[in-house]
């Protein structure tokens, strides 16, 4: 009885995730696939997606690693609040994030910008970074907390200054956490939909990334939508494979 009580919902959970993905594979127009994914509009969306998500990753690394450092190492008061706010996009509906971005950086927004951000490619990157940042910060902060700081003391005793300590000791020791955080961050940016469409719109070639293209295509061309979904699925599988041993064991 007890075995059944656990086994049935467990199987249902596995099925909930597996069945749609298998369905996607079953319904895939395998023959037409090469044609579909090489259509100019698809390739355009694919390159735009890769470009935007990688740019968002770079932004997240450049800003997120220092932030993770402060969260892990600093004793400034109020850091708990900062952490909670920074991690909020993980649970916040992305569309709300998009609206918030619009009111912050849009015309007449809270932050006056000398250039236009909404409905531009840079805006799409901003939206993706907004949503993906917490995943990187979380992983890197955890990595920094696990790191034995005495290695940095040992490096200091050997004459390494702050930058040399970071570059030659902290960073290499942080490697696995950083790689995992970057992978999840990038995957999240790549799949980002709600914040992007709200803040940057769905302008072909400028802000219509793959997920947006899937959504748009689905209304007119089911096979096309499935094909594009397969591309995203394939990229996700690659990320998951890269995290092998860390998340899947």
């Amino acid at each position, binding site marked *: 009885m007890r075995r059944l009580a656990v086994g049935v919902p467990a199987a249902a959970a596995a099925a909930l995730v597996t069945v749609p993905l298998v369905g996607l594979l079953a319904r895939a127009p395998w023959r037409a696939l090469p044609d579909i994914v090489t259509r100019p509009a698809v390739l355009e969306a694919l390159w735009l997606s890769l470009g935007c998500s990688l740019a968002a990753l770079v932004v997240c690394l450049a800003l997120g690693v220092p932030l993770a450092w402060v969260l892990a190492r600093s004793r400034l008061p109020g850091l708990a609040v900062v952490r909670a706010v920074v991690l909020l996009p993980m649970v916040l509906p992305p569309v709300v994030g998009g609206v918030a971005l619009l009111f912050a950086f849009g015309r007449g927004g809270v932050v006056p910008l000398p250039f236009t951000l909404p409905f531009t490619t840079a805006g799409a990157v901003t939206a993706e970074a907004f949503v993906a940042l917490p995943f990187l910060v979380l992983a890197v902060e955890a990595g920094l907390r696990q790191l034995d700081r005495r290695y940095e003391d040992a*490096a200091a005793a050997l004459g390494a200054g702050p930058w040399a300590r970071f570059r030659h000791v902290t960073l290499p020791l942080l490697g696995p956490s950083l790689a995992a955080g970057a992978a999840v961050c990038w995957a999240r940016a790549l799949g980002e939909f709600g914040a992007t469409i709200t803040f940057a719109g769905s302008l072909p070639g400028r802000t219509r990334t793959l997920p947006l293209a899937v959504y748009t295509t689905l209304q007119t061309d089911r096979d096309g939508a499935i094909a594009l979904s397969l591309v995203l699925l394939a990229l996700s599988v690659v990320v998951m494979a890269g995290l092998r041993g860390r998340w899947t064991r």
Partner: protein
Amino acid sequence: MDSLDVHVVRQLGAFALDARLTVAAGEVVALVGPNGSGKSTLLQAVVEDNPGVGLVFQDRLLFPHLNAVDNVAFGLRRQGMRAGAARAEARRWLERFGVADYAERTPDALSGGQAQRVALARALAPRPGVLLLDEPFAAVDLHGRAEVRRALRAALAEHAGACVLVTHQPIDVLALAGRVVVLEEGRVVQDGSVEEVRSRPRTPWVAEMAGVNLLEGTAGPDGIDIGPAVVSASSFVRGPAFAVIHPNSVTLSTRPPQSSARNVWTGRVAEIDPEGDRARVRVTGAVDLVAEVTAAAVRDLGLSPGVEVWAAVKATEVEVYPA
């Protein structure tokens, strides 16, 4: 080159550290003391106040992402040495400590003893002005210890700066240090040459480390009054004093001795600690003493815990010095 002069005052809960440590250039000072006496805290403070001191930690802390030779080259690279030259120099240091064969291994593939040798090479290679060695032989097995000690001794002879060695092993002190600083409960209780500290210990802990009997009392014309007994000694010291009796100077017998020794006390054997063909016998009685006798004597006298014995010490074998 570099000398060291630090005065460290720290309050850690109920524990107070207040110690001054001075080490001249080229001098090797052994910092000794019971567990929890503040040695590590003192070293830590020295590190914090003197960036760039060479340091060998108790737990070595080799960089796990670098192999042995790159660990040793790390400090040389930070001094601006080119990669090739630094690695060549690092290899020479690994050779000195007998671990050149493991140059390409990462720390997780090294034994504790090998890692310890690499850590010593890493600390010494950049030729730091001040060198701190915290239990540098802790992980080296007994077999390799003499060899590593020899290598370290040779390296220290070239070391122009100050060196502080924290250790629990009297033999390390004898082999490597010129001066001993004894720390107990956060304070320096004795500071002197190795010979002086060994022959004239000022606390029971130092006496035990030196392997001698220490008695404390008041010296007068008849000897030194330690309370339960007056120890005859040939000394002109008067007033509060210490008396040291070397275990070799204590003669044991199971009958009242016929010797001319002025000091004869009865007691019972508490413990027998064999060391090769000799044995250290702890006797408790009016005067607690450790006697060092031959293993043959233990057998012939039938010594075992509980046996009543007479301990005899000649007055001339009692060294008295002011407290």
